[in-house]
């Protein structure tokens, strides 16, 4: 980290700009700027807070949105200077750019880097996760406890020397409640003070989430969320499976809109391989992703209204969801766990009646959405429950790392489909819905409008959908040859055999690729060491930073407001805890 690396002859413009900016700053001696798939800043742990502050505040950087922190253990990977590194991804809303910062943690001492929670409050849970899974120590973190693994867990599971066969049993007495919850002070002048647990198994906690809350009467005065009940070792398992075998695991991240996860993941791998998917395949992905987004919003709005007492909307919104599941099942053979995408295309071409079925859905879905709109939008009870509760200001939303409808409901029109159009999104005519109040009602409005915008996107995608053509890339190093060829042709059989037995060979390197999930920016940070599977795979789950902010959002409101707020956050435990 002594000097800036000798600049390679061709640096991409953003990396070039960043290198120039650092060269003119007092930090020039401390960082090196590389040009990988994203401009990358490498820094040592002692300089990290200063660099972080610079990245956030400098008018030419302004990386205000903290997206992700991924630990990496390089023990079995060649060519890296240190064993541990913390990889941070940031986004600048004003300049619409991503950047990566790598904190290289020196060997020989315990991995330790200062917490940047005061620069980006969103770092809170990401740092706890890195402490939990990698054993990184974050001096300055106010609540450095395990997050995904339970309190009786020993070791740090994502380190390469951790043996996954070990079992750590968790007994009830191992449960560590927050210190403030154990000793509650009785304070004069308050009607009643008590600490309660909401969840983990509670119908309103959508998934299994444990909320410890201290109450003053009905008001919540302090809260802490405990998660990890549904941690399924997605990242550790990916490291022992091939690139294609990870696809069924991805379905189980956000299982309400499973298609989008798969698309996000395979896009990352396809970028690493440098292969192109034919238009027809990409359009199928777009159409089914948008249908999945509609389902996700239907589930979110429906269950949220159930939580506050409006059951009818649930029926009306689940009906289109059922018909969409019918279409998805006709394409891939499963409703929820689709496993439809493959690296390089799709598992199987769509059925012949795909386009007519899409059109029929486009006819039927708006009717149900209209009915819900009639029931809810101008209803006084709903307004009383949702308007003005769970308020997040624009500044808070950015500081907490929100993306997706949560961020857009505060007035920030950040949508990956617009900011970095992938597939065909730049060809379609659609609007980004925003609202300015940042309360639960705004989120409801934004999601309702997003359903309509998704329908508009699907309508245009169906119009340009080619009647025939390949859906898969024809690179047989990546995509399985057609079965017909495998049965008849020796060369195809060899390709088939090598793909199944060895897997796809992804060139050595790393990549962060991101798309717009139903909850916000869904990123996948993948590292390949040239082997058959990912060396490290870290999804950037959009609901993770939102759940981290939940305990601060609900303070001051009533319990009933907290339930309504939890509903509009759209927490999907599968994605939250992976």
């Amino acid at each position, binding site marked *: 980290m002594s000097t800036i690396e000798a600049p390679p002859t061709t640096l991409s413009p953003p990396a070039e700009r960043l290198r120039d900016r650092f060269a003119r700053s007092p930090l020039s001696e401390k960082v090196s700027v590389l040009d990988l798939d994203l401009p990358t800043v490498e820094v040592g742990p002692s300089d990290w807070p200063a660099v972080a502050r610079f990245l956030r505040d400098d008018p030419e950087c302004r990386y205000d949105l903290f997206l992700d922190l991924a630990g990496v253990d390089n023990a079995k990977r060649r060519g890296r200077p240190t064993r541990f590194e913390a990889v941070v991804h940031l986004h600048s809303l004003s300049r619409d750019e991503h950047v990566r910062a790598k904190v290289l943690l020196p060997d020989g001492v315990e991995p330790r880097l200062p917490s940047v929670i005061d620069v980006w409050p969103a770092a809170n849970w990401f740092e706890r996760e890195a402490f939990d899974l990698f054993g990184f120590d974050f001096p300055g973190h106010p609540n450095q406890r395990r997050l995904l693994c339970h309190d009786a867990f020993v070791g740090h599971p994502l380190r390469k020397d951790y043996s996954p066969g070990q079992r750590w049993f968790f007994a009830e007495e191992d449960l560590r409640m927050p210190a403030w919850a154990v000793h509650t002070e009785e304070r004069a002048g308050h009607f009643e003070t008590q600490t309660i647990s909401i969840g983990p198994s509670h119908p309103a906690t959508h998934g299994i989430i444990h909320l410890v809350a201290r109450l003053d009467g009905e008001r919540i005065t302090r809260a802490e969320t405990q998660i990890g009940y549904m941690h399924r070792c997605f990242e550790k398992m990916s490291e022992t*499976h091939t690139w*294609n*075998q*990870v*696809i*069924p*695991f991805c379905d189980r991240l956000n299982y309400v809109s499973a298609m989008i996860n798969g698309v996000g993941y395979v896009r990352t791998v396809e970028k690493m391989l440098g292969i192109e998917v034919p238009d027809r395949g990409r359009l199928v992905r777009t159409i089914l992703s948008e249908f999945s987004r509609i389902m996700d919003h239907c589930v979110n709005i429906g269950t949220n209204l159930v939580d506050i007492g409006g059951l*009818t909307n649930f029926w*009306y919104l689940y*009906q289109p969801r*059922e018909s969409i599941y019918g279409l998805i*099942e*006709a394409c*891939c*053979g*499963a409703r929820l*766990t689709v*496993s439809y995408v493959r690296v390089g295309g799709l*598992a*199987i*071409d769509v*059925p012949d009646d795909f386009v007519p079925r899409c059109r029929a859905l486009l006819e039927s879905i708006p009717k149900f959405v209209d*009915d819900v709109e*009639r*029931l809810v939008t*101008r*209803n*006084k*009870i709903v*307004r009383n429950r949702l308007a003005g509760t769970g308020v997040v200001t624009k500044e808070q939303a950015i500081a907490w790392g929100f993306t997706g409808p949560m961020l857009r*409901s505060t007035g920030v*029109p950040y949508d990956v489909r*617009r900011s970095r159009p992938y597939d065909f999104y*730049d060809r379609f*005519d*659609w*609007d*980004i*819905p*925003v*609202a*300015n*109040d940042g309360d639960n009602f*705004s989120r409801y*409005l*934004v999601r*309702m*409008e997003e359903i309509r*915008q998704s329908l508009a996107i699907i309508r245009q995608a169906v119009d340009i959908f080619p009647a025939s053509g390949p859906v898969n890339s024809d690179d047989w190093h990546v995509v399985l040859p*057609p*079965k*017909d060829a*495998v*049965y*008849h042709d020796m060369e195809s*059989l060899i390709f*088939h*055999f090598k793909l*199944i*037995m060895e897997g796809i060979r992804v060139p050595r390197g790393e990549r962060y690729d991101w798309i717009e999930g139903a909850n916000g920016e869904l990123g996948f940070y993948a590292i390949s060491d040239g082997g058959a599977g990912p060396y490290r795979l870290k999804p950037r789950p959009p609901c993770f930073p939102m759940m981290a902010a939940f305990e601060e959002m609900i303070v001051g409101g009533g319990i009933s407001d907290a339930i309504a707020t939890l509903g509009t956050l759209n927490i999907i435990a599968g994605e939250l805890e992976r």
Partner: protein
Amino acid sequence: MSGVLDVGARVKKLTAFERLYVPGVLKGLAVTMRHFLRNLVAIRRLPTILYPERKRDYSDRFRGKHILTTRDDGTLKCVACYMCAEACPAECITIVAGEHPRISYEKYPVVFDIDMLRCVFCGFCVDACPKDAIWMTRNYEMAFFNREEAVFGIDKLIAKPGLPVKDGLGYRPYYPGDGTVPPGDASSSPVIPGDGEREKLREKGCDVEHTAGPGPLNAPSPAEKVEGRRSIS
């Protein structure tokens, strides 16, 4: 590409009339009553299904319980190449290969177990099979009393020739065309070695034409009989 739409500004404040509870209730009642009457008239088109008397109609790509396909003579098409076991992300397939008594078949699975509790029904085994030997069906009703029962051996997986498959066929290898007709080489006719090979085999005194009739089916594999299985209790 288009613009940004402010949905918050579009929604007006409630009028004084709307702020009375009764109009909201009546308006809501109008919507729900419309649904109720429509459902009453078209009761056959209700979206709900009276399971288990009636079942949902799934497509012929549905990924349910697996079957092992057979040739016309009743032997398994599977040649125990381990490709499905290798492709399986859930590691739920256990194969033990053996030498087939009939020389032209060479290799066959002595044990072919699928642990239905581990299986994630992703269909990767079907995609991986180079011999068209494993298909999926539309049967999704599998309930067990214990974990041993959930390990399906050949006896539960084999699709006996001539017998109908429960609930119909589901996900199969994708054939170009209408998706139903398998290409020639995946047919179920018994394998007969080519002419040159046949001569050599005949000289060795092998039963090349299968004149002895169909041989015994592949040995069934009750889970308890196999030594060294991973413990699943």
